[in-house]
């Protein structure tokens, strides 16, 4: 559980020190006051990226050279200092060299309005979601993924350099498959578990009768060097993975309503929390950014029910009336405009 959040020059915040008890914390304030940035900082300390489409450079306060995030949680202190070209990570005051040794210390799940991209958006978003979840569950999977990415970039460099050496292409292809195929098997099992939780959550939140189904479509390993040379990029493996999502049996891209997409996005995030919880790992910190405001009261209450009561929750709302009744004992922290 997060007890303390320290910020320096993060987004619009100069210096901030906040303390938290257990339970839910709701940051309430007008747009632009920096309440989402508080959630973003927690997420960044956990996952080393933003849940918004933003680079670390975007998160440095204007005019400052760097930002700093410090988190005091039960039994562990995390620190991130980011400046252009340099990122320093620390755990319990000790410097951590490799992100793989740091990742997973503070598992987080964020729910944001942009989550609808998991369903109707580009396949790359769904792949990133799967990679992150698999890596949070198992540090070995993260190491294997980092190795896979290194192989993929070596292969990309080879394909970009004109006519590749056939033997070198073979060596890289063999390893890409050896590293990638076990990751795909893991993901297949992971999506199967995820789908069960998501279907249940979708039912809860939509109250409807149509079902949400999710299936994993692994990228094929059949490949031909000439095709790849023509395309100038890798055409196999994890880069070709996809999540096949259907609402009421139909692909949502064309058939789903805005409300269905939103419910499905929330259901997938709820499933992510449930999978992490079932894995017996540390319960994730749940960050709900600007989501309560766009739901009707029934779905707002359903979402509040889907979040495990023992998980630490941080939410942002622009209007205090949007806090669900079930979170009546939440601590509401006003964030005044700057």
């Amino acid at each position, binding site marked *: 559980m997060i007890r303390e959040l320290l910020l320096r020059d993060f987004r619009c915040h100069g210096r901030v020190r906040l303390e938290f008890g257990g339970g839910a914390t709701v940051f309430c304030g007008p747009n632009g006051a920096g309440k989402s940035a508080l959630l973003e900082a927690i997420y960044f300390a956990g996952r080393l990226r933003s849940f918004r489409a933003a680079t670390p450079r975007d998160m440095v306060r204007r005019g400052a050279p760097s930002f700093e995030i410090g988190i005091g949680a039960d039994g562990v202190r995390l620190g991130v200092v980011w400046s252009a070209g340099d990122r320093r990570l620390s755990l319990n005051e000790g410097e951590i060299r490799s992100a793989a040794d740091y990742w997973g210390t503070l598992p987080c799940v964020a729910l944001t309005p942009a989550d609808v991209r998991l369903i109707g958006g580009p396949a790359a978003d769904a792949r990133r979601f799967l990679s992150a979840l698999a890596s949070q569950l198992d540090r070995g999977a993260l190491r294997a993924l980092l190795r896979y990415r290194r192989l993929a970039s070596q292969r990309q460099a080879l394909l970009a*350099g004109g006519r590749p*050496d056939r033997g070198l292409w073979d060596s890289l292809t063999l*390893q890409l498959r050896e590293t990638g195929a076990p990751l795909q098997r893991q993901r297949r099992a992971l999506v199967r578990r995820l789908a069960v939780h998501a279907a249940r959550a979708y039912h809860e939140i939509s109250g409807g009768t149509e079902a949400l189904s999710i299936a994993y479509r692994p990228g094929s390993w059949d490949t031909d060097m000439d095709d790849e040379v023509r395309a100038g990029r890798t055409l196999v493996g994890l880069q070709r993975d996809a999540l096949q999502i259907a609402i009421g049996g139909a692909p949502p891209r064309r058939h789903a309503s805005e409300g269905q997409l939103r419910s499905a996005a929330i259901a997938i995030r709820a499933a992510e929390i449930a999978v992490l919880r079932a894995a017996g790992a540390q319960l994730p910190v749940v960050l709900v950014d600007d989501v309560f405001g766009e739901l009707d009261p029934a779905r707002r209450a359903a979402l509040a029910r889907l979040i495990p009561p023992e998980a630490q929750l941080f939410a942002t709302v622009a209007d205090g009336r949007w806090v669900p009744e079930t979170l009546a004992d939440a601590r509401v922290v006003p964030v005044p405009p700057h």
Partner: protein
Amino acid sequence: MSDLPPSVRRLADGLRRLPGIGARNAQRMAIAVLRAREGWPEELADAIRAARGNVRPCGRCGFFAEGDALCEICRDPKRDGAVLCVVETANDVLPIERAGVFRGRYHCLGGKLSPIHNVGPDDLAIGALLGRVRDEGPAEVVMALGTDVEGETTSLYIAQQLRSLSVRVTRPAMGLPMGGSLDVADALTLGRALQHRQDVGA
């Protein structure tokens, strides 16, 4: 604030270029050189000049050799010519020698394959290795490269090139570190170790 005279600073700046030497250490070393009573700093300067003048890569294996001669390992008749150990750089010979188990000969590639850094097969001593395997006819080639992506790629590539030469290609076993317990091993290492099990007491 006053500083050391320019010639001492020049010395310290030179020492600082050595690996693992920071500014403070370089300054302490420079002062130790100045204070030396015996002539060891002059001898050191001579040794540096001599080493730089005489040492070049061995014409056969690429390890450090003096003058035009082959290196000590290539000249040693007690070395087993049936096993050839391929390493990335000449530096990598030393830890293997220290392990004291390997009695064969070496071949230094001078790097590893990395398309990202524009290093291809022609940039390494791979052609020379194929020539040696043909001429010297070893029974086994050990690929002792790193287990990172580039090391593995190089091992696989060379193994492929050697396939037509009827030589056994091996690599050092991967597995659990000595004196470690299972829960400290990462999943990749543990997986490899379980794939390549060995008989107990064999």
